[in-house]
């Protein structure tokens, strides 16, 4: 907290008491000047550093603070907290950053990255113009040449190998609008292999959470954690990954004297602020959660009423939990039963309690199961759907939530419609194109390796290859890849090359690709691995600070960012690049049919309007650009804890900040958005809701609809299915629809008008009527403790592929080998081989990875920023004091970290610390530019090398994929460490 900023007026008013009082030598500046008779210049200037760049001084002219300063607001491009960035712009140059006090999310504050974000835009280490590799040399080319050549090449590949041979990797740093048109581009190109970083951060969360209660997102918000009386942070280090969120957590801890329990293999900066720290063995989250539930069920601390009304099949969970008595939990995870009893009692009794998790839970071969177990813990204790409770999932990048929502996902079209025929038809209507034409864009796959042939329609409805396996899609024999050929070209937009595990395999893949295109503000690791000689292009893309557009923060609030300055150098924004590529391929007229294009650049506002027109399923329909801009103008009016503006405000009255989705109906309905999901204590028009009836109405004779539970003010006082015209007709509610709405529904439904639902009704009529009658359009269902469609319907413990406890593998093996997402997943064979070969003896240390506060993601961007780079100049491995002593390793010296696959080794500095327990090592994953001990700096195009380079942690990571989402295993493998 700061004292309130003074408005204007001199800051240095003379205070007589000060002069007379305890400070003897008070001289004001002018007096000092007078006394010293200072003159500027001369010898005096020698040896002085020059602060303030020439750039800034020139832009500012003679006076640094003049009337020419304009203020622009955008959103920090780093993590998902969604901090507002307030920029001071003079003559088109971004000269300064001011605290954004009016934002209810960050309230003026930033972390190291946000406070240094100005340098991201002004950095002279950015990619300045399009480049092409000719015989291993980077050569400057023009945009026209780049688009022409790339367009010709991918068309050639498409003709020869089919559309699936080109892989489209998008970005969580896209704005919603860019993510949307990128996904749309994928659909028009004819592939579902369109992915982005959510794959490697929270894909398992999305799958696990959505399969439990309906939507795959944070249920509450950062601000709402202030209401919690107990918070468990499992597998997350928000102090480094989401520092501004800690403002809300620590305030809650103070105000409510809340319990803050951190469960993690590593004593993190977050753990240092916890009231209880539980150290577990990496990869034993399910035993620990079941261990907690064991105490809850044993003592009857569960919320019986909540379970009866709103949860399906909790008894199935009881059976599994019964196996996890305190002794077995301690044997497997190392956590004493007595401690878990304490945690269980706190979480179940000191309510409201919230569960926060991050990549420590998700990046595992059992990621989805982990997430499911965590949801079940919330359900068992009734900690969902109320203030201060919920699954507070802290997502990663600035717009990873939005990019996921927009369908940069191999399994879905925008807004979670999936890939089924109905979804395609819905989007064909929104896009105003023929469904049959879209289908014709997809590939026919011949039968191979015993698998049946696939028609165009089946290809269209078959999930693509995940980003974690792209190089397997290149390297594996083609009959193992479930499409016409393997991957021949990578189109990488805003995605690091070092963020996926098994980097040595990726290098092999890079050498084999026919074409590599990297469109990014920086060259990224893809360009600097020295794997290619030709057919490699770099396209300079501006940061999202240099463009208009909306971003969805982790709490589902959507914030509009305005362009701060024009794109630097020759860089262009994502909209323009996608448009030009579409134009080159002859798709632009179709794709941008209903979107305004100004001077070759599609307008962000108009793209958002198209999203609004199609985004019914997730409530992305009410957030018009006008409303979002009004929110940015009126930030100060929103309450810190409820995120709500006063009802009487003319512009944003009653709205929740950023209209967190679902924001039902058309913008004119002025739905306030939903701050807390599934909250039955509020009317749906006030942001209330129920669990989503997504999985049918009954299973094996047991109802899947809520019992005696409904949102406040609902006309239906029991569970109900999702609303379709059929249901409407039964209830007689179809009469509430206006003539226009009925006409639109009739047009949509055609022969089968009854099938038109709340999600496919383009008129918004169904949602409007639902709101008026106080019901949730998606129905009122039960959350599922048993998700029968998942590989492990009730989560079971499975040892990591490379486990330090081979003795447990027989009892808790990983899942059998199977095929998922067009690829084989041979985790079982790999685990078996590792156990048989005694890998755990040669590689006795558990290797886990995570974030540093100064860097983000693959780190090219942040490591190019000298203000951040100065703070972390070396890649390191955290090694326990005991392990270091055993190996004669001193703090700060170079060591080799070797891994069990590919003879992988990494030369890094040792950081000897007790943050990690004995037998555990930790590496941050942001480094690249060194490869297996070699400095790769010379392979970057001249002048674009990041300030700090280092080994990538993924040099040494190993095999292992979640069966549902293809999530990689980054948190638990084995390694050996030796002094250099």
């Amino acid at each position, binding site marked *: 907290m700061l004292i309130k900023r003074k408005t204007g007026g001199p800051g240095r008013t003379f205070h007589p008491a000060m002069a007379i009082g305890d400070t003897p030598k008070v001289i004001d500046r002018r007096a000092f000047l007078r006394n010293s*008779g*200072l003159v500027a210049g001369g*010898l005096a200037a020698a040896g002085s550093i020059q602060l303030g760049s020439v750039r800034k001084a020139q832009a500012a002219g003679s006076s640094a603070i003049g009337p020419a300063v304009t203020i622009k607001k955008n959103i920090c491009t780093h993590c998902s907290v969604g901090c507002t960035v307030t920029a001071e712009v003079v003559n088109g140059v971004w000269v300064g950053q001011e605290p954004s006090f009016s934002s209810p999310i960050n309230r003026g504050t930033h972390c190291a990255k946000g406070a240094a974000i100005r340098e991201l835009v002004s950095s002279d280490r950015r990619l300045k113009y399009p480049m092409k590799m000719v015989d291993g040399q980077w050569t400057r080319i023009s945009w026209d040449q780049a688009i022409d050549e790339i367009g010709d090449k991918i068309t050639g590949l498409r003709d020869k190998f089919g559309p699936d041979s080109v892989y489209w990797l998008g970005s969580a740093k896209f704005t919603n609008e860019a993510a949307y048109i990128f996904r749309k581009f994928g659909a028009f190109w004819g592939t579902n292999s369109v992915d982005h970083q959510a794959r490697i951060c929270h894909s398992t969360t999305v799958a696990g959470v959505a399969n439990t209660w309906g939507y795959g997102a944070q249920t509450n918000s950062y601000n709402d954690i202030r209401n919690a009386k107990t918070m468990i942070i499992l597998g997350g280090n928000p102090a480094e990954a989401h520092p501004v969120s800690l403002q809300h957590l620590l305030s809650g801890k103070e105000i409510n004297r809340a319990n803050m329990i951190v469960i993690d293999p590593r*004593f993190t900066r977050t753990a240092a602020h916890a*009231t209880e*720290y539980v150290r577990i063995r990496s990869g034993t989250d399910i035993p620990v959660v079941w261990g907690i539930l064991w105490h809850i069920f044993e003592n009857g601390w569960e919320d019986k009423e909540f379970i009866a009304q709103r949860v399906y099949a909790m008894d199935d969970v009881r059976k599994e939990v019964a196996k996890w008595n305190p002794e077995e939990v301690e044997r497997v995870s190392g956590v004493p039963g007595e401690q878990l009893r304490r945690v269980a009692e706190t979480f179940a009794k000191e309510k409201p309690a919230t569960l926060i998790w991050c990549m420590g839970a998700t990046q595992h071969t059992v990621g989805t199961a982990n997430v499911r177990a965590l949801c079940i813990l919330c359900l068992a204790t009734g900690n969902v759907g109320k203030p201060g409770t919920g699954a507070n999932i802290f997502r990663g990048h600035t717009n990873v939530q939005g990019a996921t929502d927009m369908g940069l996902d191999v399994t879905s079209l925008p807004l979670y419609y999936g890939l089924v025929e109905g979804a395609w038809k819905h989007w064909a209507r929104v896009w105003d194109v023929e469904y049959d034409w879209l289908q014709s864009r997809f590939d026919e796959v011949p039968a191979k390796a015993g698998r049946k042939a696939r028609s165009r329609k089946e290809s269209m409805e078959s999930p693509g290859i995940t980003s974690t396996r792209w190089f397997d899609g290149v390297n594996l024999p083609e009959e193992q890849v479930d499409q016409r050929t393997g991957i021949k070209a990578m189109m990488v937009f805003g995605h690091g090359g070092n963020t996926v595990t098994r980097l040595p395999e990726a290098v092999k893949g890079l050498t084999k690709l026919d074409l590599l295109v990297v469109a990014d503000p920086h060259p990224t690791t893809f360009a600097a691995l020295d794997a290619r000689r030709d057919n490699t292009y770099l396209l300079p893309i501006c940061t999202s600070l240099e463009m208009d557009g909306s971003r969805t923060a982790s709490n589902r609030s959507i914030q509009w960012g305005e362009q701060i300055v024009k794109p630097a150098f020759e860089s262009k924004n994502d909209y323009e690049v996608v448009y030009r590529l579409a134009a080159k391929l002859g798709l632009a007229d179709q794709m941008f049919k209903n979107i305004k294009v100004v001077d070759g650049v599609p307008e962000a506002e108009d793209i958002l309007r198209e999203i609004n027109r199609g985004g019914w399923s997730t409530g992305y329909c009410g957030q018009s650009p006008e409303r979002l801009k009004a929110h940015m103008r009126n930030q100060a009016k929103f309450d810190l804890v409820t995120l709500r503006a006063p009802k009487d405000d003319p512009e944003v009255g009653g709205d929740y900040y950023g209209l967190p989705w679902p924001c039902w109906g058309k913008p004119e309905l002025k739905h306030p958005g939903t701050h807390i999901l599934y909250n039955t204590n509020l009317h749906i028009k006030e942001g209330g809701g129920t669990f989503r009836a997504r999985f049918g109405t009954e299973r094996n004779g047991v109802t899947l609809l809520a019992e005696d539970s409904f949102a406040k003010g609902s006309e239906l006082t029991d569970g109900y299915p999702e609303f379709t015209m059929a249901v409407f007709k039964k209830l007689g509610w179809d009469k509430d629809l206006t003539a226009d709405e009925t006409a639109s529904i009739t047009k949509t439904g055609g022969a089968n008008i009854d099938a038109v639902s709340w999600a496919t009704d383009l008129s918004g009529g169904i949602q409007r009527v639902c709101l008026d009658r106080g019901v949730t359009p998606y129905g009122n269902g039960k959350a599922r403790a048993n998700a029968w469609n998942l590989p492990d319907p009730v989560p079971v413990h499975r040892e990591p592929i490379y486990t330090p406890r081979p003795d447990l593998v027989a009892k808790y093996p990983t899942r059998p080998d199977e095929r998922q997402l067009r690829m084989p997943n041979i985790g079982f064979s790999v685990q078996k081989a590792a156990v048989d070969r005694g890998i755990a003896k040669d590689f006795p240390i558990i290797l886990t990875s995570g974030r540093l506060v100064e860097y983000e993601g693959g780190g090219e961007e942040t490591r190019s920023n000298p203000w951040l780079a100065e703070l972390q100049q070396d890649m390191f491995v955290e090694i*326990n004091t005991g392990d270091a002593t055993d190996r004669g390793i001193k703090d700060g010296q170079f060591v080799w970290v070797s891994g069990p696959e590919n003879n992988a080794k990494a030369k890094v500095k040792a950081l000897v610390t007790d943050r990690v327990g*004995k037998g555990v090592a930790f590496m941050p994953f942001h480094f690249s530019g060194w490869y297996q001990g070699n400095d790769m700096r010379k392979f970057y195009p001249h002048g674009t090398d990041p300030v700090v380079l280092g080994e990538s942690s993924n040099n040494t990571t190993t095999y292992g994929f979640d069966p549902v989402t293809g999530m990689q295993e980054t948190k638990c493998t084995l390694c050996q460490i030796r002094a250099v």
Partner: protein
Amino acid sequence: MRRTLTTFRTLVAATILTATVGASSTSFAQQTRDGLNPTGQNPTAESVNEEFLFKQDPKITGRISIPDGKAAHLIQPAGRDYRDFRERWLPWLSALAVLGAVALLGLFYFFRGRILMERGPDTGRKILRFNGFERFAHWMTSSCFIILALSGLNYIFGKRLLMPLIGADAFGVVAQYAKFSHIYLAWPFMIGVALMLVLWLKDNIPNKIDIAWIRAFGGFVGDKHPSAGRFNAGQKMVFWMVIGFGSAMSVTGLMMIFPFALTDITGMQLMQVIHALIGIAFIAGILAHIYIGTLGMEGAYDAMGSGKVDLGWAKVHHDLWVEEEQAKNASGPQLGRHQVPAE
């Protein structure tokens, strides 16, 4: 027998195996319970505080990620002692040393006056005492010393004496040049000290004659001149002072020129204190040397001026050296049996 042996072997192997398995499982249990593992403890309740840390160590030190090691010290109140020394004691000590030396020499001059050359038969004849190279070494060192001393004293007295006189601006310029000269002239000074060590070491080894010389108070008191070699005990003392203080100043000075290269903040403060204390003692000592070499004694200056001294003077003050020189060099002025004038 053979069978017993086999059984025994199996038994041993089994024991080893059990031991290994046992060891590995206990080590895992320990991993979660030993002192390294904070499991079960409440990190908030046990947070460190200033008082506790100060009891353990006078400065509070932690971990930082920037390579600047000295930034790892969070608070080091020892700076207070340094300040106390520098601002409270050092000005008085140095004033006392410098002015005290001047005053003593003044008193000496007042009572003893200038030691005049005793006229004798050899008066007027010259003997070479220091060759050109020796004089070069001396003057290089001494001129550097004077500037170093003045610029050094400026660190203590500049703001107290000079600044009020010439104003902050002019003083800023002077002080900046003074600092540059202090750092740059330190190098020729150090070379000079090293040269003098090489040139004059053999003549400055203390011996028995020195004891007699000291007993006779070097001839300053009374009329008799004690015998002396090339350098008398007094001069040897000056030599060893220059070597000793000079090296101490060099070492501490270098440490300050390359701050924190070898030592931490405490070491740096200590270097400062040593440098200042020896510096003022050095200045006081050299003042005496300058006095005796110029104003205090007639004929002494020539040794470093022209390099040649009056033979008569030399015979009185460095009789053994003159003997040695003349024995070495027959062409030079001879001292011999016939040196004693015929009665």
